[in-house]
């Protein structure tokens, strides 16, 4: 038994090493004095300092955040409305709409990117913020729809009728009864849209303009010359932010669960 446990622990350890060692190396080298990627010559914060003085990187970070915020909010509004509509369709229409929704997810990004670019050229749109935001809304819409729909399906449909019965107009019934019910789905849909927007490289690459480069595109163009340790520093910061967000979300969930348990015991 003891031997078995030792084996399984080693196995798990190896898997985690495989997953996280590269990031560990990246973090370590972000503190490396030398520009070299082979030897560690001493500890320094220089690359972080340089990073914050690199206008190109800071500007593309701001661009990325603006695009992520705007596109995820717009996608959430459109996606939620779409989900409500799809949910009340008949069976045939529903399955047709669902296939259309899945298509952009299955479709290779490069195809979406190129076709978007062609569309914008055809429409004679100036490449820049507008095209990026339109593209990002388009590819994050399905994630919002797919997060909201299950919540709508779980909901007792008579709850909506009950609200009407008690004097709500349809719009008010949505706001007072349906929206609070599907809110968890709306939020997770929005978060997914936000992360995918932050993350996206391929589609952004084809739809960006000269003044609106996003962070992934900037990093890509920087690595074409030589990977600067500034990028290590930037990547470290991004990783820490993501890790912190994840921890906060999980911690909150845990507390909520405990609260629910406590109130159930209280009954």
């Amino acid at each position, binding site marked *: 038994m003891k031997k078995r446990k030792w084996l399984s622990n080693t196995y798990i350890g190896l898997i985690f090493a495989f997953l996280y060692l590269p990031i560990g190396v990246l973090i370590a080298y972000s503190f490396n004095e030398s520009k070299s990627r082979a030897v560690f010559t001493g500890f320094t914060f220089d690359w972080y300092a340089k990073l914050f003085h690199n206008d190109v990187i800071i500007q593309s970070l701001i661009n990325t955040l603006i695009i992520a915020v705007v596109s995820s909010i717009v996608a959430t509004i459109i996606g939620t409305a779409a989900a409500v509509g799809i949910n009340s369709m008949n069976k045939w229409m529903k399955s047709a709409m669902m296939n259309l929704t899945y298509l952009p997810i299955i479709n290779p990004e490069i195809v979406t990117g190129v076709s978007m670019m062609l569309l914008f050229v055809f429409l004679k749109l100036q490449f820049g913020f507008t095209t990026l935001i339109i593209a990002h809304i388009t590819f994050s819409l399905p994630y919002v729809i797919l997060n909201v729909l299950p919540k709508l399906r779980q909901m007792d449909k008579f709850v909506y009728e*009950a609200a009407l*019965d008690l004097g709500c107009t349809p719009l008010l019934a949505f706001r007072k009864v349906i929206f609070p019910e599907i809110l968890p789905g709306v939020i997770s849909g929005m978060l997914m849209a936000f992360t995918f927007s932050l993350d996206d490289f391929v589609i952004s690459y084809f739809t960006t303009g000269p003044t609106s480069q996003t962070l992934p595109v900037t990093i890509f163009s920087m690595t074409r010359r030589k990977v600067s340790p500034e990028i290590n520093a930037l990547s470290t910061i991004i990783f820490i932010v993501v890790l912190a967000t994840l921890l906060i979300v999980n911690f909150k969930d845990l507390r909520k669960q405990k609260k629910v348990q406590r109130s159930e015991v209280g009954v």
Partner: protein
Amino acid sequence: MGENCIVSLKDIVVDFDGEVVLDGINLDIHDKEFVTLLGPSGCGKTTTLRIIGGFVEPASGDVFFDGKRINEMPPYKRPLNTVFQRYALFPHLNVFENIAFGLRLQKVPEKEVAQRVAEMLELVNLKGFDKRGVNQLSGGQQQRVAIARALVNHPRLLLLDEPLGALDLKLRKGMQIELKRIQQSLDITFVYVTHDQEEALTMSDTVVVMKDGHIQQIGTPQDIYNEPKNAFVADFIGESNILDGVMHKDFVVEFAGRKFDCVDKGFEKMENVDVVIRPEDIKVVPAIAGQLSGRVESVIFKGVHYEMVVESAGFSWIIHSTQSQEPGSSIGMNIDPFDIHIMHKMEEER
């Protein structure tokens, strides 16, 4: 339309995707009356309720409320409230906020809201539950919240769609009495949908028996039980022996191979009829003394009475009797003339 009619349905027809659900419903509901729509599933009783509630628009026909046509009036403008089948409480709100929902929409002052909600909690025996989440309540308690949420708005008409369907038998009996008490103490009209005939007979002033989108009979519980209009109603309201018979002339009917005296008249000569006899109206006598004789096939103890199946004249009779008979033995059966109910054959079978 009658004098004190609160709701009137006139020639209501409803079809869903070409399938006719209601076929010419005419119904007057009087003020302060407890009306039950009774029928098997798929008979159109819930659809009738939803027409009154405004959730279904009839393909043709008119809905009147207080003599005013309200066909196009949306549900949120109708002066009535509904208790839904599965309660449909708002899960994100606590008991107090669920009940206060309608009052908040009417912008009732906060002080009055608190007072009226407290009154309702008292009425449905849920005092002290106001801060509870609705998902922490039992089925019966959720049911009471649903009733309170509807009644707090002081509707003149309350629609109830099988509100006790999800409760167990004992709880259901208790809630039946409670609902009747609430209806009488508030002095408002209830329209109640159920497929449970006993529930209908217990609570109602008027029972409307429905089948396949048609109304079969409207009457008091006593009328419906004692004077069913056709074999379907007789069979649906309690158990019945339904036999094919021929009306020879007024007061004489032939069934089960012999002629019986009866109290019915006005049928055509030699008309084919349905003969309905309640299981408790058949008297068991010694084999030679009966109008009919038969063999006891089975006996089941039912608590108050024994239920026997007796083979006679090619028909399996159901008999309720307080005295048990030996299975396999021969017995005689007597039926009094006033216990023989004669009905025209139902239209679709003619």
